């Protein structure tokens, strides 16, 4: 229940996550707000340049493969290399993964390692449960370092799943440096268009609830396989 009379400034601030009502000294903001802003930026930058802890990957038995990206700078400047798997990665996938499953789950750091670190332990098991509940045959999950969204296509070519889910770190914002997206595609492969992919974005503790997102992904994948398509024409 609300307190008696609300402070007008507080009542304005509750309507927006924007940094309003911060006040000023001269024309400049106050020290705490400047430092808070720079701190949030620092968190965002660190999450771009961070790495996903091995512990969290091993918790779910995810092995790692790499794209053709050589460094973070290379990743940022050349999105095309993040779409292609390293040669070694291709042979590992062929050796270690179940071929032609109903659904292949792939995890990648993308632009925010922090997103994976923070959300994987809620999203991943809930996703597996959800896919299980639809009796889908799940492939061998793995982690791709330095992946871009379109790396789904090459993985699709190699493993031939009916559908693929890529859990990938989003470009960090100041509101959240740990936001994850789930991209989904029916029969990914060369020539798939952006419009064939579906996405649920902003998955994090204060955004799209991680376990509910995972539960919904299961429903979507089941529908994709039933209707043999993905994209805007899928009937949800």
């Amino acid at each position: 229940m609300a307190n008696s009379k609300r402070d007008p400034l507080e009542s304005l601030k509750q309507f927006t996550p924007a940094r309003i009502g911060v006040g000023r000294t001269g024309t400049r903001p106050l020290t705490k707000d400047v430092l808070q802003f720079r701190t949030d930026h620092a968190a965002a930058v660190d999450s771009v340049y961070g790495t996903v802890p091995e512990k969290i990957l091993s918790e779910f038995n995810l092995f790692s493969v790499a794209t053709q990206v050589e460094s973070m700078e290379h990743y940022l400047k050349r999105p095309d290399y993040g779409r292609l798997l390293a040669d070694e990665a291709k042979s590992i996938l062929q050796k270690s993964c179940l071929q032609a499953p109903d659904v292949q789950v792939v995890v990648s750091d993308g632009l925010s390692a922090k997103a994976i670190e923070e959300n994987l332990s809620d999203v991943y098991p809930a996703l597996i449960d959800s896919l299980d509940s639809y009796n889908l045959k799940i492939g061998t999950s793995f982690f791709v370092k330095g992946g871009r969204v379109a790396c789904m296509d090459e993985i699709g070519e190699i493993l031939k799943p009916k559908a693929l889910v890529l859990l990938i770190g989003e470009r960090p914002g100041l509101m959240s440096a740990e936001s994850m997206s789930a991209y989904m595609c029916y029969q990914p492969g060369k020539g798939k268009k952006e419009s064939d992919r579906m996405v649920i974005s902003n998955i994090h503790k204060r955004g799209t609830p991680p376990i509910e997102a995972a539960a919904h992904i299961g429903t979507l994948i089941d529908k994709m396989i039933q209707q043999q398509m993905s994209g805007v024409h899928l009937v949800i």
Partner: protein
Amino acid sequence: MYKTTTLLGETFSFHSLKEIMAKANEERSGDELAGISASSMKERMAAKQVLADLTLSEIRNYPLLSPDEDNISELIENQLEAAVYEIIKNWTVAELREYILSDQHVSDDLLTLSQGLSSEMIAATAKIMSNLDLIQAASKIEVQTTCQTTIGQKGVLASRAQPNHPSDNIKGMRASLYEALSYGIGDAVIGINPVIDTTDNIYTLLHETKNMINEWSIPTQNCVLSHVTSQMRAIEKGAPADLIFQSLAGTEAGNDSFGISLPMLDEATALIQEKGTAAGPNRWYFETGQGSELSSEAHYGIDQVTLEARCYGLARHYQPFIVNTVVGFIGPEYLYNSKQVLRAGLEDHFMGKMHGLPMGVDVCYTNHMDADQNDMDNLSMLLGTAGVNFVIGVPMADDCMLNYQSLSYHDIATVRQVLGQTPAPLFAQWLEEQGITQNGRFTSKAGDPTIFMNLT
């Protein structure tokens, strides 16, 4: 075109104007991604040397993209004022640079000159100019435009209030706008980037922004920055819009990927002239930004500075009220770090002004670029001295919807104060009437958004 030059004992050869133009650019990641940049500093300088010696007629006679193939090339070609071009056609790019920078030549001279220049000629000049050249040249050009109010006067630094909200919540937008107004921000436009691009939503947002303007008699204009077709549908339905907005690309194929065409822009022009709510003649708001053609694979191997100039060639056809480059939004694969963003910001501003455009800049960056807010402090001061028509403000520089950083309301107020600039005249007067400023200086009401709440 085939040119060779020997520089410090090394010979460099170039096989086309396209190659010269690309290699003459200051370093940027987008040109590297496209595979067209100079491979060494010396090659870059060789290209600049060659470019400086080309005549304007050579640039015209070797089109980078044929007017038969591309309607933007055609439009730019048809814009050229023959009388002016005839006088200058034998100038080299070096001479053009020197004419522009000469003390003898003031704003009117440059705006007359502009009529005889193609976008490629303007881009070529920018490539052989230093950052300070770009500032000096742009600062001479005064471009005034009028929608509901007039901006662009010497000594005026206008601003767009961008009160975005992650779910288009009206009260959230109002709250953010109150904050903007209390810092004297919003004289160029109150412009919202909507999350939901439906006719109904655009209609509602146009109404809400107009209501706020009417409620407080704010001398400014409103705009909702969705795709032009959804704005058109909303305006047809009776939504009050002072301005109509669209993002532009520098090639026909690029515009195609934005879902726009010249006939569509013509149709929108007719609609906003007939049904727009503003009194003045300039009713377009355009946004541009280096790299968009490459990202949509519609660049034809042309460098991103030249393609950006071609956006301005397209923009000037429609006599817009405001144009801005969203310089640091596109990402590190096009502009990697603050040095590249800063350079691009100054280039874009100069090239826009040289086209006679009311040029503004969204001084901004994303979190995966090698840049921070200090770099924006620098660029905003440089653009302020260059006489930029307007900049964009969001609360504490953090846009909670688009997830990038621009300037804060504080930053714009600071640039104005340090450089002795003012908001647009009618808006400045309104700030005095609201008691936010007194004789141009902030009062205790400044920075207090609650003064706009209806506390009955």
